[in-house]
């Protein structure tokens, strides 16, 4: 049975008036493109679902959709999204939230419409009265005692946190005129804190089957000839040497340069720059 289909896409489905489910696949070529495009920035980016309320938007008005961001585990391939309300239209963008806060779109989902919520709690008592039936108001959100299905306990816990961070209304908050910025930062402990570091990614391509070494360490060469290696980036001068040798050992090439890192290195606390967690 195929595990993946090699196609970048995200598909959104309605589970019920308050939950949607999205699944996605990021094809290897897309991942490689992103890695090439973003360079080492990709390692400071976070896989993000941007849930947009597009109610009315598809009717031709300008794209003024508000959205909520859900940071998902880098290896997740599906997510149950509680950030929705009945009788609204939604779309989800899968992308990367970059360190700068910018959103790099990877794939955009189909649009779904959640169903209207009806007077299910009272229909058994009131069904005989047509007038009462007419007068019924939408019921308040039923308590979903059972937790939604999720790929693992870990993700479940993480999503619970998101739910809390998003407040009672889920995307309701987003639908309000000035929705609060929604993100992980809101669940952080009370003390403000920051940990940051930088690492180095060396990457390239050569003839498939070649032997590649980066500063003496053998790099795995993919079937298409590409390779990449991620390594620590200590303070100081770091000479990098990439060598490639053809499979028959008759040809070889060498590229080298020096990377210099200055400053305090791995840091905790201090400065008040942008927190990359807070995507938007």
């Amino acid at each position, binding site marked *: *049975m*195929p595990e993946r*289909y090699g*196609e*970048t*896409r995200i*598909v*959104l*489905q*309605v*589970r*019920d*008036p308050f*939950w949607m*489910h999205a*699944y996605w*696949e990021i*094809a290897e070529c*897309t991942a490689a*493109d992103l890695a090439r*495009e973003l360079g080492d920035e990709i390692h400071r980016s976070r896989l993000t679902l941007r849930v947009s309320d597009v109610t009315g938007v598809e009717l031709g008005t300008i794209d003024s959709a508000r959205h909520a961001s859900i940071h998902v585990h880098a290896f997740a391939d*599906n997510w149950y999204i509680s950030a929705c309300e009945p009788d609204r239209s939604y779309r989800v963008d899968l992308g990367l939230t*970059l360190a700068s806060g*910018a*959103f*790099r*779109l*990877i*794939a*955009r989902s*189909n649009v*779904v*419409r959640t*169903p*209207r*919520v*009806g*007077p*299910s709690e009272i*229909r*058994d008592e009131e*069904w*005989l*009265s*047509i*007038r009462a*039936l*007419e007068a*019924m108001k939408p019921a308040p959100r039923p308590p979903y005692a059972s937790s*939604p*299905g*999720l*790929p693992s306990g870990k993700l479940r816990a993480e999503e619970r946190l998101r739910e809390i961070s998003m407040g009672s209304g889920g995307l309701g908050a987003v639908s309000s005129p000035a929705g609060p910025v929604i993100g992980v930062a809101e669940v952080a402990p009370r003390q403000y804190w920051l940990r940051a570091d930088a690492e180095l990614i060396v990457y390239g391509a050569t003839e498939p089957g070649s032997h590649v070494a980066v500063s003496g360490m053998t790099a795995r060469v993919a079937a298409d000839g590409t390779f990449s290696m991620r390594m620590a980036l200590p303070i100081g001068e770091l000479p990098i040497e990439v060598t490639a040798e053809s499979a028959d050992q008759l040809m070889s090439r060498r590229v080298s340069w020096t990377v210099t890192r200055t400053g305090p290195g791995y840091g905790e606390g201090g400065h008040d720059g942008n927190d990359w967690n807070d995507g938007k």
Partner: protein
Amino acid sequence: MSEPRGYAAIVLHAHLPYVRHPEGDAYLEEKWFYEALTESYIPLYMMLAQLAAEEVPYRITVSLSPTLVSMCRDPLLQSRFSQFIDGLCELAERETLRTRWQPQFHETARMYSDRFKQVRSAYHDTLRSDVTRGFAELANGGRIELITTAATHGYLPLMEVCPSAARAQILTAVRYHRKVFGTTPKGMWLPECGYYPGIDTYLREAGVRYFFTDAHGIENASPRPRYGVFAPIYCPSGVAAFGRDMESSKQVWSAHEGYPGDSDYREFYRDIAYDLDWEYIRPLMGDCPVRTHTGIKYYRVTGRTEHKQPYVREWAMGKAAAHAGNFMFNRERQIEHLASAMDRKPIVVAPYDAELFGHWWFEGPEFLEFVIRKIAYDQDTIKLVTPTDYLDEYPRAQVAAPSMSSWGYMGYNEVWLADCNHWIYPHLHMMARRMSELAESYAPPQPDPVRRALNQAARELMLAQSSDWAFIMKAGTCVDYAVARTHDHISRFDRLYSDIRSSNLDHEWVSRLECTDNIFPDIDYTVYSASPMASAIREMHTPAISSAIS
């Protein structure tokens, strides 16, 4: 009989997933079919035919799923059922001997023996091995209205992103119904009552006049239906939607509040398969290495106790008659109340799974028989009709768009879209898309081997889409089988797709698949190409990779 004040529409939905394993006879899942034939389909047919023979007036709607109809007409399953019912008759016969000195069980043993023999003779003599023949005759005689459901009972709300697949489920079912029964079905049972706005346009295209939703599908329709579920509405497409009445449903469905839980009815779980020694019951088990229900059960529900009391047939029949009377009484009161507030006769729609009657609720067929007789002779307030009868009398109805809904737990999609089964959708959606792509790339005429491979791909997709697999994964029994079936159809499709694409077909393998997954001999893969929506799906799935950073 004076003019009734309102109507009741009883709908029996008969469905089993396509389970047929020519490769061996140890598949206990095939027994689902044999048991349902023995305990539900044939007894229901016999009951309805008897009423028709006595000219008791009644109208009932029966939905026969295309998968079930295919199994009923399949020679291999017919011959296996013939062996099964022989074995069961033999075991029941031995039971009458074994229980000779146990008066508390002996009468019941004789009841089973007689009953199974009646079923066997009806199967061979009247039905000539095909129970659908009997239902077709009842339909021709004007007693029942035969309708269909989606081709393999695919759960339609989770096909919204691949509308060509939903459309193919509907069109293929209607074509198959027409081939078997000679008429276009007037109605369609949406699998699990699963509706999403827009699916009705395909029903319209297929020539279907009506379908059913759960109560909230109608109650939450927009604009708000004036009469709730007690009158059908027209979708904007012009197809009528009838809503399920919750009260009549609950009385029959609910194991605790409903009739079937009564202490005098037969206990389902206490089967001789678990009480008697293995060698004794083994002939009925075939090659199955485990004990499964025989259908011979000597105890009554008794109460919430492990100490079950022996079954007494007369008591159970008395209760079935009393419950039928209660059911009718409640419908009369309901109709009287509704009629006073409506400018048309109300209709109460009471749909049930056919397997409830006889298999789960042993006395269910007798209950239904009493309901039909009592409604015919004991009152003048209500009359049994089919949805078509109602639409013929009231061709005008309010126009409103039903709301997405199902009759599953919590009323939406969460049974079929849960942590245990959501893994199937990336496959099902991709297969649907690939099927459309194949249908468009390989427009007819195609060389015979290619055409056959394309048709087989369509079969594998449809078989993978049966709502039963996701349901079983969620329900938690027979999960291995449901997972294995899903895997099989996904991987068979995957190989067919790549072999067709690479012009590398293994004809022998395709022939074997045609024998194994042989549903819908006349399936036409081009059903996946003609959809006006096809291009929309392609667009939707196109990866939206832009370099723009917002």
